[in-house]
């Protein structure tokens, strides 16, 4: 799975939580440390593989990538729905030839 972070996303620490504002959607969301770390590992200018995100967080936390993947799995859909992350296709579709 390849992921891109939304451009101009403002992610800010807020006490024990985090908050982000998306100028594109106009939405504000409170998020936890895990979601904030996931967003930090993504880039707005190029796709990043989810496995790379898990590896980076695992390196920071001392967990295994598999454990991080399980920890993150529930948050991707929320971040996508909130407009903070977009899932990219691994390969662009190849148009079929006209009949």
């Amino acid at each position: 799975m390849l992921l891109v972070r939304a451009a101009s996303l403002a992610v800010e620490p807020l006490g024990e939580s985090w908050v982000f504002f998306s100028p594109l959607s106009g939405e504000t969301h409170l998020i936890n440390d895990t979601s904030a770390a996931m967003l930090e590992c993504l880039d707005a200018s190029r796709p990043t593989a989810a496995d790379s995100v898990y590896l980076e967080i695992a390196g920071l936390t001392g967990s295994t990538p598999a454990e991080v993947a399980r920890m993150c799995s529930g948050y991707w859909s929320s971040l996508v729905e909130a407009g903070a992350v977009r899932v990219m296709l691994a390969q662009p579709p190849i148009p079929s030839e006209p009949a």
Partner: protein
Amino acid sequence: MDLAVTSVIGSAGADRVAQLMASGGLFVDYGLASLRLHARSPSLADALHAVYRHFPLQAAAAGAWADIDLSVVPHGRRRLSGQAPEVRLASDGRLIFDPFPADHGLPLVEWGCNWMVAQRMNHVLLLHAGAVERDGTALLLPALPGSGKSTLTAALALSGWRLLSDEFGALDPASFSLQPVLKPVGLKNASIDVIRTRFAGAELGPSFPKTHKGTVAHLAPPAAAVARRHEGARPGAIVLPRWQAGVATRFERLGAHEAFSALAFNSFNYAVLGETGFRAVLRVVRECPAWRLVYSDLDDALATLGRLWQDLPGMQRAAPAQD
């Protein structure tokens, strides 16, 4: 602005208020916003005379700008059917709000004016919060309707705090200052007698029974607050009040994320302001500690907030104000 200021409304008399409303319009300066009001209603003039008693009596000159232009107009069809007379509210020539009984003009004007402020004043962040100031620093009281926000705001305004608003925490993001939206404080049902009993000097207007919020009455903003209605105050603390029958006072520290939610997601125009609103709320919750105040005893709540103000870091030390 071409305005004729002759005296304060309270000393001018209700007849003069009625006369102005029926001619070029009564002009009211709330601080953040201004109102021009047209009406032909002696009962409305009486009520305005009571709750705007400390405001300057101002006649709007023809063509002078007012941020909000309201007209109370008769609801004509009722007359034909022989039913009790009603009035409607028009702004800039368009009818807004459902009809009200003709003798309920003040609640109609007050709610209509609040609605127009929330629609129009998008140069500031309009938090749904009471706001009072003491020792140069403002206390924000964000809360949902029914939480006792207005009652506590009224009580504070009668206990040495300067009233900024019971409805709008109007934050100017550029100056980081809360601007007064100084209107009469709307009290409902049991709160009316709570304030009347606790504060003998409270200047309350007439009661209006059977509104969609029950009985309402309005507290006139104190004269000192009216005189300083163009003077903002930097926010210093956030307290989320909730009145609950029979409970002992609880005063609990809140996390920044809880304060953020209470302010941003309970604002009139947070979404309209986009990232400016986001940054403004973020700054408020980072610079202002927040608490939740659950109370049933108004005096205990007032004492709790008085102690908070004495202990708040960075607060100018001043002698506590007396009732």
